[in-house]
């Protein structure tokens, strides 16, 4: 129980702390990063850079590990094909991200900082996930990437 539940709890907590520390829970800062034709705020590039550097190192350990530290096997996405669905989904995601200045992680993390605004965004987010499920009801394998 502790072996399987503690890692995601610690990971989620670190993730939420990183989002708040990096300023991603401030929609004005995120929209400032996307505002390259206006008053550009490059902070988010440092957030993404820091996260990608650590993860690029972490990926190098995966081939050398027989199994994850606290689980039986790796369950990682294996697809490499570019599909219209990928592009359409990313485009819609970017439109919503730009409108609100929030994506799923910061939206949920903000429940602790601005409960009203974060609840409204999160309710919409869940509605969008449900709508997608209703519209496509596709096999879960394709949705595993997150």
């Amino acid at each position, binding site marked *: 129980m502790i072996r399987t539940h503690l890692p995601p709890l610690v990971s*989620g907590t670190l993730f939420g702390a990183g989002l708040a520390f990096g300023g991603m829970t401030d929609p004005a800062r995120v929209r400032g990063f996307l505002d390259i034709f206006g008053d550009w705020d490059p902070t988010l590039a440092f957030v993404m850079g820091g996260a990608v550097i650590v*993860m690029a190192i972490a990926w190098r350990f995966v081939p050398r590990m027989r*199994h994850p530290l*606290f689980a039986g096997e790796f369950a990682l996405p294996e697809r490499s094909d570019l599909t219209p669905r990928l592009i359409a989904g*990313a485009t819609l995601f*970017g439109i919503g991200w730009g*409108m*609100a200045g929030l994506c799923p992680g910061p939206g949920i993390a903000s429940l602790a900082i601005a409960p009203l605004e974060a609840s409204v965004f999160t309710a919409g987010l*869940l509605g969008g996930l449900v709508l997608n499920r209703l519209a496509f009801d596709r096999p879960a394998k394709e949705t595993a990437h997150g």
Partner: protein
Amino acid sequence: MTLPGFPDAAPLDGLFGGLLIGLAAALMLLGAGRIAGVSGIVGRAFGINDSGMSPSSAWMFVIGLPLGAGLVALLKGRLDPEFMPLPVLAVAGVIVGFGARLGSGCTSGHGVCGVSRFSQRSIVATLTFMAAGIATVALMGAFA
């Protein structure tokens, strides 16, 4: 520390926050063998997706997000976020959720976990949602 030419930027806070996010995603990868993709994990917690980690593990991650952000808010004092109006947040939330599922990932799954793995799908998705976000902010600015 400030960045020359960008008085509002917080590069060190950003970098530190990013390192924490990277550690979180690395723990998920090397500990649980999974991608720390928030949209997928949230969908799993609420029983909307039917694959991924166990629903209870997904809940642990989801609960951790506000827990960590709340701790930082206590440590740093007022974070003072500026939100868009509630109707915009609601509509944007739906578009973000729908798009994240359609595109198999969001800023965390594609932008952090996939890009760092040099996944072609994730790099294309990340460039696409950044371009769409830039266009959206520019258009909203033009019509504001």
